[in-house]
């Protein structure tokens, strides 16, 4: 069962910048999701349009039935406390944005983006095989990211993160005066709020999937790689 590790080489897989960005996002997301559910609990109804229908019906989701929609264990802080939830949320929103901007700048300048995250023709050809091996719970330890890894990381970094930031800002009355087009293109402030919730749910889904992948594909090796940079690759890599 256990394979000889001696002929599987250790390589430096993640730079310090990548590791710092990763943990910055990991911590921010944990706090943003927890405080986000706290904020959601203050009015656990989602609508479509500019306003919330009280005299008419434009709600598309109503949770909680009058009480808090999310249980105390899922919210930060655990008790009903919108004020603290907001303080935590905006602090970590700034951290997420700063880390994203710094990472993007560094990844562009260093070539990390081009070298390691760009989807190549070879990636596209091996996409089918990558999907099949994931479906069989086989996770090769390669030097480089596989096509599914590249696609999911790009989706988070270039679709979900920008969308969650834009829909968050679209809820800000101050930002609305500075950029009225923002809630407009998102379909109104309450639609932006609904989108913010959906994108956050997608990010939570990514976190769950990501952690499952790490646990299934040799958690100690993965964890070491993201903490120290050193990663043990398969034979022949």
């Amino acid at each position, binding site marked *: 069962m256990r394979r000889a590790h001696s002929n599987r080489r250790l390589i430096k897989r993640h730079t310090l910048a990548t590791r710092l960005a990763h943990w910055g996002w990991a911590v921010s997301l944990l706090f943003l999701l927890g405080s986000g559910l706290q904020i959601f609990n203050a009015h656990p109804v989602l609508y479509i349009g500019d306003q919330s229908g009280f005299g008419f019906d434009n709600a598309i989701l109503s949770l909680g039935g009058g009480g808090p929609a999310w249980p105390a264990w899922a919210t930060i802080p655990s008790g009903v406390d919108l004020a603290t939830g907001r303080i935590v949320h905006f602090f970590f929103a700034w951290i997420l944005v700063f880390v994203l901007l710094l990472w993007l700048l560094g990844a562009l300048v260093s070539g990390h983006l081009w070298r390691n995250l760009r989807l190549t023709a070879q990636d596209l050809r091996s996409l089918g095989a990558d999907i099949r091996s994931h479906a069989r719970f086989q996770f090769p330890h390669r030097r480089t990211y596989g096509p599914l890894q590249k696609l999911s990381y790009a989706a988070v970094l270039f679709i979900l993160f920008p969308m969650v930031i834009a829909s968050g800002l679209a809820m800000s009355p101050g930002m*609305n005066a500075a950029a009225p087009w923002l809630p407009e293109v998102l379909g109104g402030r309450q639609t932006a709020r609904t989108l913010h919730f959906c994108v956050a749910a997608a990010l939570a889904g990514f976190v769950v999937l990501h952690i499952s992948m790490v646990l299934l594909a040799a958690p100690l090796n993965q964890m070491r790689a993201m903490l120290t940079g050193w990663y043990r690759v398969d034979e022949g890599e």
Partner: protein
Amino acid sequence: MYERRITRRTALRLGGAGLATATLGGCKAFDRLADPANPLRRYMERANRLTMAAQRGLLDRDALAQEFQWFDIRQPQRPNGVTNPQDAEYVTHVASGFSDYRLSVSGLVQRPQILSLAELQSMPTRRQITRHDCVEGWSCIAQWTGVPLSTVLERAGLRPGARFVLLRCFDTIERSLSGGIKYYETIDMVDAMHPQTILAFGMNGSALPVPNGAPLRLRVERQLGYKMAKYIRAIEVVDSFSGVGRGRGGYWEDRGYEWYAGI
């Protein structure tokens, strides 16, 4: 390629990690942040100043909040907070249709004012259809009619050192052992002098109803609802709000909410 199957060990690992994650959220590890004196919370609160600096930097001083059309008003304005003050002075005013109501404007002004509702209504008014955003997350569109706060402040004339406008209200929002706490709120001069910042006495084409803050409420369209004090009794121009309430600039601010509510 090498093979890897889900073994019992992997399954156990997965379960263990899942449990650890749930416990991390489940335990009350972060509840200390709810304490207003917690140093980490106080550090995190500083992000609000960054938000304010960023938004004020992006915003033109007089950039207007989005205004809507009459057909966007699809429902009555949802009232929030205190909706029917039982304070004796206020109840008397309601009974007399606010005929004896006088708004006092004092503090760091050259000419303190005592203004009746009729006097306020005779000043140049502004009418705007805007979206009210509550800190809870909901929004509601209504039309507001009122006199720009800047008009009233210019009539009183600001004295040097005037930095904030303090609104004192009729309504008791909280009863404590030391008596009732009446709502209070502050805004700075950037928002006070903004063209859309009005002392509203009309809503959706009629007189401002009691649940929405009769006879006079504030509209600060670039911030959240809790900045827009209802049932205004008096305006004081101050250089600091350190002596007001617990010193954070408003009733909700003193209970942990941010002073700058542009987000």
